[in-house]
């Protein structure tokens, strides 16, 4: 199955491991992720004002590209747009909903982007976890597991953009199970994570590091309290705030033991038996390899 794929800027630079592990895991599941040609930054975070259309232009432009891909035969009759980063999923999805619910706004944007073909409103933005649950099925994922992540205690972390608000959420915002189901299919232990839906602080990391390190400390400590040895997540900004910012956490709390942070696709790639370069562990700030060696997973 070929599906249009929107990477998002960070996945091409500091989060390349997210992309390489995802693309290769998808191949094993029979999914070919075809990158959108001429895509542009989606423009996180979605604009929330009623009269603001210009900030949705970036997202709608990408939706037009999906139409073009179908016309050019890069994908066949597939108007789904696959995303990995939850912020991209959210921003593209919210813009899409706005266009579908407000035809006048869609017309304004189409008029503004007169150099592009009109967006017809028939693209569906899909997150990779959604694809795994609804289209591929966790059973199929389990079949492809060569190296079950036995005894690896991973707390699933969702952040905000995947679950809220309900119109865009892919799972119950209060009791999500989608990532947990994936991790169980990969053979990992079942860990509850009460703080899994708590915001990591998002773009506040730009102006106030203190707040972010406090939030990270709370989230990671709570996960450890529930028995977790690592976190699994789906957003490069969450990864930065929970992984890279552990530097500030340790400065503030010297007794804090660092906790590795994975993209869920890295765990998939590991479980499917792909090599370490595909998994891309060297881009993780807190090195997860000692933990993985301890569990005989590498």
């Amino acid at each position: 199955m070929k599906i249009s794929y929107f990477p998002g800027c960070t996945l091409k630079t500091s989060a390349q491991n997210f992309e390489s592990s995802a693309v290769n895991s998808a191949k094993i599941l029979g999914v070919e992720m075809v990158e959108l040609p001429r895509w542009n930054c989606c423009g996180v975070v979605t604009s929330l004002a009623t009269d603001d259309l210009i900030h949705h232009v970036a997202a709608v432009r990408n939706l037009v590209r999906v139409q073009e891909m179908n016309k050019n035969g890069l994908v066949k009759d597939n108007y789904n747009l696959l995303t990995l980063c939850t912020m991209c999923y959210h921003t593209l999805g919210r813009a899409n909903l706005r266009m579908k619910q407000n035809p006048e706004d869609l017309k304004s944007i189409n008029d503004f982007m007169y150099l592009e073909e009109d967006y017809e409103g028939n693209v569906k933005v899909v997150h990779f976890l959604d694809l795994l649950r609804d289209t591929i099925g966790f059973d199929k994922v389990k079949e492809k597991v060569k190296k079950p992540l036995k005894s690896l205690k991973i707390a699933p972390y969702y952040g905000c953009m995947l679950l809220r608000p309900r119109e865009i959420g892919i799972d119950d915002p209060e009791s999500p199970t989608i990532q947990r189901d994936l991790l169980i299919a990969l053979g990992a232990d079942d860990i509850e994570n009460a703080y899994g839906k708590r915001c990591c602080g998002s773009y506040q990391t730009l102006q106030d590091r203190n707040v972010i390190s406090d939030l990270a400390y709370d989230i990671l400590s709570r996960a450890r309290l529930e028995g977790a040895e690592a976190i699994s997540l789906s957003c490069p900004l969450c990864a930065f705030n929970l992984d890279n910012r552990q530097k500030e956490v340790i400065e503030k709390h010297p007794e804090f033991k660092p906790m590795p942070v994975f993209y869920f696709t890295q765990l998939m790639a590991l479980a499917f038996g792909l090599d370490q370069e595909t998994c891309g562990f060297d881009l993780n700030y807190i090195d997860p390899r000692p933990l993985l060696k301890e569990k005989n997973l590498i």
Partner: protein
Amino acid sequence: MATKKKSAKAPKAQVGESDLMARIADANKTVVQGVDDSIVEHWVTIYVMGRAYKVPATLTIMQAMEYAGYRFVRSCGCRAGFCGACATVFRRAGEYKLEAALACQTLVEDGIYLVQIPFAPAKKANYDLDNEVYDSATVFKFYPEVARCISCNTCTKSCPQDLQVMDYIQAMIRGDFEGVVKESFDCIQCGLCAIRCPAEIVQYHVAQLARRMYGKYGRPREKNVQKRVKDIESGKYKDEFKKIMALGKDEIQKVYIKQQQTREIY
């Protein structure tokens, strides 16, 4: 031979003012010397900063403005479409869209409404590439406003070279240096994109930094050149050079003429 153009006789005004009135009446006429209006077949009217001028239809905007009496002290450079000094913004009659063009390369059209933008007060970062990492993060360090791009495409619409400016800024955001180089190669740094950008990005300076970094770190080094440099450094040609340096003037002349006459097969 240049002939003095005939100008219409101005109405006789009061004494002392007649000269002034004549000059004012003449002001709307073309003032080029040596051209008889009767040889021009087609005329158009152009509006330069709101003022109307009747000019021959076969001229470029720059020539037409000079025909009308403008003497360029800025907004004029190579006159060959390469330097970007004559960046012009104009609107066609009856249209609302703004177009961008180079005055030296664009023919006039009837009714165009234009102004020239000789300079963009664009931010220019100072950098020492020897001390920087070849990474998009470096570009963000010097030009963080690149992250403000909203993909509105105004820059592309403002480009007189028809470059896909938005595409190369987006390539920069995702660290695709080669993409930036490809798309921005023909940029002449006229500044129109930066003037119109709602996010206040200086597209052409960002592209220049990217091209410099790509040239320094991204391009593969030419293997033959590297080999030759190594050979030179190892002293392979030291003796040959010593020989030549020791030759007298007559000897060198002989050697040179002989070399010019022989055909060597390499």
